[in-house]
């Protein structure tokens, strides 16, 4: 079955068996290994990507359902010239250790800040509830998201 999606602004397609999940298609057919396979049942969030503006577990979405959609993966967060403020702040704060939760965490955080530019700590926790991390204890991740939010707001008002 031919599935055509727009990934990170570029049209991509692959011929995949109908039962292929979006995660599998991204990783194996399109070579975008940023989204990870952690549990395959939608609990850990390492497979999180944005489809048509909302964050989803790509391991639970059939690739065929995403046909015609706009998909944003971690590979699309930074542009050619600079890192996304979230990526900068994650790096500055040392928010990631093994890094496996990183792509999913960053995508969920981006999804939050796109909708709610000034979240409270509670709202950050709520937004990241579907992304598990076994290494860090979440503290620096939350700090980095709060800091990135500040950065993004000051960037807009500073001009």
């Amino acid at each position, binding site marked *: 079955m031919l599935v055509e999606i727009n990934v990170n602004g570029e049209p991509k397609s692959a011929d995949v068996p109908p039962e292929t999940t979006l995660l599998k298609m991204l990783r194996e057919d399109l070579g975008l290994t940023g989204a990870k396979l952690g549990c395959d049942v939608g609990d*850990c969030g390492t497979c999180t990507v944005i489809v048509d503006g909302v964050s989803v577990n790509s391991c639970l979405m059939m690739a065929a359902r995403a046909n015609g959609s706009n998909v944003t993966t971690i590979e699309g967060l930074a542009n050619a010239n600079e890192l996304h403020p979230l990526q900068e702040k994650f790096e500055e704060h040392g928010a*990631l250790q093994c890094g496996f939760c990183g792509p999913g965490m960053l995508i969920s955080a981006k999804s939050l800040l796109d909708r709610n530019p000034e979240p409270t700590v509670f709202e950050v926790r709520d937004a990241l509830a579907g992304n598990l991390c076994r290494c860090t204890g979440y503290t620096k991740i939350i700090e980095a998201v709060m800091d990135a939010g500040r950065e993004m707001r000051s960037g807009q008002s500073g001009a």
Partner: protein
Amino acid sequence: MATRTKDIRTDTEELLTEAKAPSQQPLTVPTDKPVAYPLDLPEGEARLRTPAVGQRASRPDGRLHGLGQTQYIDDITFPHMLHAKILRSEYPHAKILSIDTSEAEKMPGVLATLTGDEIPENSFGPTFQDQPVLAYPIVRHRGDGVAAVAAVTEQQATDALEKIKVEYEPLPHVFDPLEALEDDSPKVHGDTNIYTSKTIKKGDVEKALKESEHVFHRQFRTQMVEHVPLEPHASIASWDGNGRVTLWTSLGRITLGREDLARTLKMPQSKIRLIGTVVGGNFGGKNEITNEPILALLSKKAARPVKSVFTRGDEFISSTIRHPFTMDYTTGVDSDGKILARKIRLVLDGGAYCSWTGTTIGKGSILAPGPYNIDNILVEAFAVYTNKTTTGAMRGFGAPQVCFAYESQMDDIADALGIDPLEIRLRNGFSENSLSPTSQTLQSVALKESLTQAAERFGWKEWQE
């Protein structure tokens, strides 16, 4: 209970909201004086003056992590690579009467199968080589692999597993570690389930218990804990034309892994290359080989690279877990709550194979009495086999379990004697030059200072009122 003057939740919220990146925070180490070696400063100060301590550093891999460019094993593919799946045992303890992979071999996409009798040397382990690569003829826990299949796609490998016919003769099993201690319990290996033990003796514990004002006794149990690394165990095996095998693996201890591969494959180490890549969480669970010899052999048979990744289900039943401890603590104290004697029995649920139990029992035993000055100690620790998931290394190696026991009992004692829980610890705690339970002189001890400072910051006094 009175409300605390410091509300820890709003404090945390504030801290998280205001936190700045470390690079933006000032250094706290005095840098006005140059560092000169050798450092002839008093012990504590020396630590503050070395070039590294107190410096801000960025993780070198932070950039790639944020970009999603870090390559974990499952992100690596090779041309013509196959996928392997492992068939796990149906019983916690059984004899395999027969395995028939002939139907599986005919399934679409299947290029190789493997069973335990094909492993050149089917045993490995860091202390005792009691663990098989693929169990044969005895399976000792539900997570034991009994056969493996390599196929072009993962689904083909999974489908082929269903066609493997295994005939089992179930054997009596033992799950409870206390039951496993008994002579008449089903045996997992050999004549006894006790496979390692440790004794620590100091002073005369029975005499001191008799002379104690109060004696407290309790049994504490801790549970199985699975590491749940976000990245499941993963490996890829590939051979070159010169008979050398390379494994890309999430394994942490690659030199030990290479030894185990040399042993199980009956190959010289010089022909084995292990590449341990960036790992997505280990915590001790990736300290020993799992599938690597299986993949090496499948790869040899199929003449193609073979990859295998644990499912999350495999992670729970087949990868190692933390040892459950059953701990009997008998503690004698005087009327001021000063500990005079401590007698401890530890029973480690050692799972089906020994793995890192040797280290765990050692650490657990030495740390069992707690960071307290006790003149009379007896620790008797036993590790027993059970027909459950192999218990292995997990951060702490026995320390967290005993800590739960001795700290809980400390609170019991404080409560019974009407002594402040902080105070009783200050009365008993280690200081500089205290002796450990095995009579090691301890230095750089800041236990009481830490407790006192922490108590101040938490608002311990206010909370008590």
